[in-house]
């Protein structure tokens, strides 16, 4: 492998600057004492303090967190099942449509998914709130989980399962004692992805939530429409920091296994 | 092995086993080399991949770089293709310094180990690629592609994509693609490594015939000693970035420069010992592992008291039967193992010193009752001229 050319270095520099500068600016200005976004008024953490006094925002964060945990868990179970079905069952009725259904929500514009789910909930008279948002998120996130787990499963050495079967394990036993531990990193990554997709979602939540189930992105969206404020910068920074910490922790934890 | 009766050869004139009669430009002091490496060095990080190499390859020669993986042979060859730049020294081709000449302007072509066939082009498209880069007229390209595909017997599959070819077929296409530009030198990077054993042997002879017919200089890299011995006019043995020995296959096999080369090429038993004195035209060597004083032929650079290794190949040792005339050197031992290979039978004989000596015998007749069996006491022996005295 040759070294990187000057063009390559320029592309990397420009690309990553483009990706990270806006986030960096946002983080820096969350510590700005001045309320004006372009004027640096000195270092301050007052916006973070204000954040924790904002009860509506804290309530929304609580709702978001609960929806995220529940929906990510259900989505991981369903998505893993779907991935196993796709990879391990050679053919079944409607496999083509099933595969299509699993991939479609990933590219489907969210406004369509959101509106159609809401209309379904209205049609079947389901109360809108925590559960309607959770169902919406499960539907969307399970597809991502399925994709992540599927790609791990398809590179998985099938003879391990066959060895387990040869040693007398039932298919179910073989799955739980051999397959699942080995694909666990992918399942965990799938859960994490589902969780961040859920706490990040604005569109689906806006359509499907009801009174008392306002999520954090909905609150942020409401304030953002009114303009840029340091307070939003502060909560954004907290969310970015939390995600960065989790991602780094996970990648460190899974590194020895990934470096096969 | 390509050698018929090497034990009778005189070691002072090792001109044996040349593939083409009278082709030996390296012996002609007036001959000008086609390729010349002069003091070439290359480091990758802390390791020296090529550590001071001087080497000349002549026109129409089939030259082989042989050595274990990581010895620097591939790096040395890729310098000629332009894919590696020497840190020091220079590489010249037909008198022209190649420094700074990019790969696409060099009159050499390479057959890659992975074949590197373009998966999005047909066989014909792959072969035509190089000619198109030269801007040749369409009709000439078509004619030359057809001709070279005929040569490698792949014309019938000209419209296939590489994915639809077998390993042997891909190898032929890669060869055709590299040959079609009529390069001054064809570089072959482990060209037969991906083929199974039978196909490999067949292809070896085809490549040799092709090389003679086309008159192109071949520079091949391989780690397979049989392949190098079979195909090359001359072989350079490399180890840790240096060239240890250059010579014809027979020279390298029969007169290895040191213990490393002797052990790398084929099987060998080395009796360590100390030179005692002259013995007619040769020397006597007192060897503790052999348990006797060995008589050996002429050897350069030794005097009484020099520590030497007496190297002997299994096929040059024989089991001395009761009543046979004994050779000059005989040792007593016990048969430890017998391996029947069909064409050869290998005996592992354990001497009193504990040293195990390999002796091989050709099975010239079918189902001969074996003269010896496991745990039999035997005498083994060899002629003084069969052994090589190693000082390094």
């Amino acid at each position, binding site marked *: 492998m040759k070294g990187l*050319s000057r063009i390559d270095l320029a592309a990397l520099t420009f*690309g990553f600057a483009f990706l990270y500068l806006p986030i960096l600016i946002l983080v820096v200005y969350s510590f700005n004492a001045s309320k004006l976004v372009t004027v640096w008024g000195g270092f301050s953490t007052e916006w973070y303090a204000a954040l924790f006094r904002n009860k509506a925002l804290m309530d929304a964060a609580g709702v978001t967190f609960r929806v995220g945990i529940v929906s990510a868990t259900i989505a991981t179970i369903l998505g893993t099942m779907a991935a196993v079905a796709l990879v391990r069952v050679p053919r079944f009725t409607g496999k083509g449509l*099933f595969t299509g259904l699993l991939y*479609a929500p990933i590219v489907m514009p969210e*406004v369509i998914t959101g509106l159609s789910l809401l209309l379904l909930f209205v049609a079947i008279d389901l109360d809108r709130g925590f559960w309607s948002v959770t169902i919406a998120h499960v539907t969307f996130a399970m597809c991502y989980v399925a994709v992540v787990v599927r790609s791990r499963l398809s590179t998985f050495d099938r003879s391990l399962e066959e060895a387990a079967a040869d040693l007398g394990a039932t298919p179910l036993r073989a799955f739980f004692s051999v397959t699942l531990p080995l694909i666990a990193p992918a399942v965990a990554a799938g859960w994490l992805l589902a969780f961040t997709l859920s706490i*990040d979602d604005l569109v689906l939540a806006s359509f499907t939530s009801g009174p008392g189930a306002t999520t954090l992105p909905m609150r942020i969206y409401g304030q953002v429409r009114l303009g840029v404020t340091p307070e939003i910068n502060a909560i954004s920074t907290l969310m970015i920091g939390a*995600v960065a910490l989790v991602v780094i922790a996970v990648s460190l934890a899974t590194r020895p296994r990934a470096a096969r | 092995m390509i050698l018929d009766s090497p034990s009778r050869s005189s070691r002072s004139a090792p001109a044996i086993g040349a593939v083409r009669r009278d082709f030996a430009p390296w012996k002609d002091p007036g001959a000008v080399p086609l390729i010349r490496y002069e003091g070439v060095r290359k480091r990758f990080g802390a390791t020296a991949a090529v550590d001071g190499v001087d080497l000349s390859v002549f026109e129409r020669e089939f030259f082989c770089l042989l050595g274990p993986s990581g010895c620097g042979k591939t790096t040395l060859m890729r310098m000629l293709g332009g894919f590696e730049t020497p840190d020091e020294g220079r590489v010249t081709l037909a008198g022209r310094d190649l420094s700074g000449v990019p790969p696409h302007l060099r009159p050499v072509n390479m057959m890659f180990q992975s074949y*590197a066939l373009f*998966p999005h082009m047909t066989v014909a498209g792959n072969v035509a*690629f190089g000619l198109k880069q030269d801007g040749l007229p369409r009709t000439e390209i078509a004619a030359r592609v057809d001709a070279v595909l005929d040569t490698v017997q792949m014309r019938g599959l000209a419209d296939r994509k590489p994915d639809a070819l077998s390993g042997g077929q891909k190898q032929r296409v890669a060869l055709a693609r590299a040959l079609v530009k009529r390069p001054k030198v064809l570089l072959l990077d482990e060209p037969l490594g991906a083929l199974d054993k039978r196909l490999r042997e067949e292809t070896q002879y085809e490549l040799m015939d092709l090389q003679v017919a086309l008159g192109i200089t071949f520079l091949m890299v391989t780690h397979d000693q049989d392949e190098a011995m079979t195909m090359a006019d001359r072989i350079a043995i490399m180890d840790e970035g240096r060239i240890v020995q250059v010579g014809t296959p027979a020279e390298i096999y029969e007169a290895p420069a040191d213990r490393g080369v002797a052990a790398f090429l084929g099987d060998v038993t080395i009796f360590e010992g100390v030179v005692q004195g002259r013995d007619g035209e040769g020397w006597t060597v007192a060897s503790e592992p052999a348990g006797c004083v060995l008589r050996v032929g002429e050897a350069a650079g030794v005097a009484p008291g020099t520590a030497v290794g007496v190297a002997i190949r299994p096929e040059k040792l024989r089991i001395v039967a009761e009543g046979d005339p004994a050779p000059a050197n005989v040792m007593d031992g016990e048969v430890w193992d017998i391996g029947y290979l069909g064409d050869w039978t290998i005996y592992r004989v354990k001497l009193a010193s504990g040293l195990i000596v390999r002796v091989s015998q050709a099975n010239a007749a079918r189902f001969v009752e074996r003269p010896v069996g496991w745990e039999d006491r035997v005498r083994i022996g060899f002629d003084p001229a069969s052994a090589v005295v190693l000082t390094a």
Partner: protein
Amino acid sequence: MIGRDAGRGRFLLIGLPWLWLGVFFLLPFLVVLRMALSDSAQARPPYRPVFDLSDGLSATLDKIAALDLENFRLLWEEPLYLDAFLTSFRLAAATTVLLILIGYPLAHAMARAPARLRPILVALVILPFWTSFLIRVYAWIGILKPEGLLNMMLRQTGLISEPLEILNTEAAILIGLVYAYLPFMVLPLYAALERLDATLIEAATDLGAPRWKAFWLVTVPLSLPGVLAGSFLVFIPALGEFVIPDLLGGSDTLMMGRSLWVEFFNNRDWPLASAVAVVLLVIVMGPIMAHHAFETRRAEAERRGGRS
């Protein structure tokens, strides 16, 4: 006995996710279609359904015959919606092209970086994707607005004297779309380029092609599947994007996703919003199915390639 257990297990394994997607993804589209055919009304919920389960078969057939498709006719006749469609299409296409131009050099450089650096570079591309989409779009408001950082910097360097109007224009939407979707383009491109055997380039230069030509004749054609995969992943969601045009494009720029949102939340015209959804769905269905067929074929080819 074991056989029947395995059969039941398999039925559950396939059945549960199937059922979920059927009920919560497939079925809702039928509900949307029914809504799109209904009339808007001052009621809770604000529409008069056309079909009812209490109708008999003949009544339903009569109603089908009498369908006026009023909502769809409105979408077709009202230039506002046609504009929204054209704008969406134009911006999604421009985003895709820009992303190929920006993403290709980046992915190419990543694929050529030393092997031990590559996982880190990939992680750096993915990381922003894990942070809130809304927040990443929001960050651009502060940069692009008239008294924002970009204008401030341009003015300080003397390049401009009057602030540029970028926020609330199509340019701002384009910047936002390119920014938000960059990882979706880079990752498939990187996957295609990283898999590409470097000796193929060496072979091309060995056969007489200069570096740029080797890139054009070998690298580019072999990375086209990656380009196509990335384009699907970007173009389809960009067509129906709501957050970016809403936050960066202002009220003047209408894209289909935003039209739907405005009809639904601001005008409370559920049938019309549903009609927009149906149209958008029909438009994206072609690319989605093409994408699906493409991915299936690619997975198939990869499986075969992996075996040989």
